[in-house]
């Protein structure tokens, strides 16, 4: 019998694990355990509850609130990155599983992205990020891949709403672009509003209270559930 364990690391990322490495598509959430922060070396197999567990995929928890600190490497892109290259239109009505959305992330802009991006990585882009279609998958596909934040001087308005509503942090900053290249290390502290890199530190403005309220609830749906009194 397969048992599935949901591992939470930090507040946002969820790892779906199973006892066998050849069942990569199990995605039901079963037992939830809080794992000590020291287990950072996934996806090596590890022991839990007397069983050897394998990481099979990075899951997506749309009811988890934001990570307060994000640490990873930079993926740098230019101006006007549109939603067709972030998530191709031909998949919008047939790909419904968030994990599968992640496999197509940035497909028409950077075919390496989906296979090489690591949780905590950050996209630094030029102006008007996410222009084009309203498709929500263009935000979800980055979130399921564990992208910790996007930093751009401006966002298309619908993309910004999608970021807020799915809990993908979109930082507005014009200052950092020239100080980072793809592959550079980056750390973002959302409580302090600070971006750190090898060449310095930069502050960014806080989200408005209304927007932060939605993001902190884990996105628009958990926010709405709380508001309607369905969740405490």
């Amino acid at each position, binding site marked *: 019998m397969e048992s599935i364990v949901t591992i939470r690391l930090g507040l946002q990322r969820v790892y779906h694990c199973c006892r066998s490495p050849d069942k990569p598509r199990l995605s039901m959430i079963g037992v939830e355990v809080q794992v000590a922060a020291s287990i950072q070396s996934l996806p090596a197999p590890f022991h839990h509850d007397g069983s050897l567990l394998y990481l099979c995929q990075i899951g997506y928890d749309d009811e988890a609130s934001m990570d307060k600190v994000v640490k990873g490497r930079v993926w740098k892109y230019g101006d006007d990155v549109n939603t067709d*290259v972030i998530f191709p239109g031909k998949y919008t009505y047939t790909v419904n599983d968030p994990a599968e959305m992640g496999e197509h992330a940035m497909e028409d802009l950077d075919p390496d992205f989906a296979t090489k991006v690591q949780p905590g990585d950050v996209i630094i882009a030029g102006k008007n990020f996410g222009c084009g279609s309203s498709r929500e998958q263009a935000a979800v596909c980055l979130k399921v891949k564990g992208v910790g934040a996007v930093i751009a001087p401006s966002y298309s308005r619908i993309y910004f709403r999608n970021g807020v509503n799915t809990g993908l942090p979109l930082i507005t900053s014009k200052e950092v672009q020239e100080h980072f290249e793809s592959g550079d290390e980056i750390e973002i502290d959302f409580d302090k509003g600070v971006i750190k890199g090898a060449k310095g530190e930069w502050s960014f403005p806080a989200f408005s209270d209304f927007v932060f309220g939605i993001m902190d609830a884990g996105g628009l749906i958990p926010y709405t559930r709380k508001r309607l009194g369905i969740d405490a």
Partner: protein
Amino acid sequence: MAGKTFSEKILAKYSGLDSVEPGQIVEVTPDVAMSHDNTAAISKTFAKIGVDKLFDPDIHLVTLDHCVPPANEAFANNHKQIREFVKKHGIKNFYDINHGICHQVMAEHGHCLPGTIMTGSDSHSTTYGAFGAFGTGVTRSETAVIMATGKIWFRVPETFKIILKGTLPDGVYVKDIALHITGTIGADGALYRAIEFTGPTADRFSISERMTLCNLAVEMGAKVGYIPPNEVVFDYLEGRAKKEFEAVYSDDDAKYDEVLEFDISNLEPQVACPHTVDNVKPISEVAGESIEQVFVGSCNNARLDDLAILAHVLDGKKISTDTRLVVIPASSRVMLDAMRLGYVDTIVSAGGTLASPGCGPCMGNHLGVPGDNEKTLSTANRNFRGRMGNRESEVFLGSPHTAAVSALRGVISDPREVPVDWDVIRSELGQATLSPVLVKA
């Protein structure tokens, strides 16, 4: 107190406040919340919220248009789930696969009304500003939340006024104006802002022209594209409007964030080149580029007047043997009018391929996805890499007249080389009964 813009006035009215300022966040209940083939995904998000019933089924409007009839079982099952959801929740405003593209169908059926707030889970929902509505694209989750609560939040936008002056030269159309503006101000030129298109030229626009311009407002980054409604709009809505309405206009002393004026009297036909809508060049710089496909379709330019121009250019001729011409009317009403006026006969006789009304290959689902290294001249609104379903292809955007002449030659061509007689076209369009264009005298 200083005057207010259209957006400030309508958002204040709907949020029950005396007045609002740009930057303020308000909550409103829209008159119409549209969703299309994405309604299946929206219904799953709605289920997650945990409410049994829709807040108000009558504000929801659902169309099937993005891949109709369905190209494969995945699309078919998507449609099936939507029909079940619509039936279960008593959504009366449902337009199945036999109607056409959402924005066009909503206009034809009298849902787009002046002084109303309309949302769509589709970025081109700025189109409703053609009728004087506050129309804007929202996300899938937001439509699910409207289903549950009836509410949506908006940031009150700053307003960018664009004044259009002058008379369009022959062979130059509203599409060329829209592309020219997009090229001038850029894809983020109106980011987060509402655009008001005003001036004597805008005032003369037909319904179809208004829709083409407001549709493209989102490609300028805008939240809303609005043209003050006049008798053209009111005539169109006579006997068609789904309910009573009251138009909302900006005050004369309203405060604008930016004002820009365009005199279009000497404008050349324009083409948006790969791979962004703001990569716009005059036809003289692009003419001669070989193309393997021409697509006349989409919510931007596939109405009766667009098909009329195409038919008049192609009349008695054959398209280039090196080029395919895919023609997809915006709606079944447009198709019926085009059949009755003989346009379909002319287009198909000339070598065009006609497909059923809907979005077609615009976002790469079916009915004309280009092959590797092929170039398409399209009348649609986006040319992003991979947009038409193949990242190894290129898309150019232009007017239906540019598309028609390019199909004849097999290369991107200046439409002014094959002029059409607008007096004849105008009298033909006057006979249309189902999808009137209402060209202003």
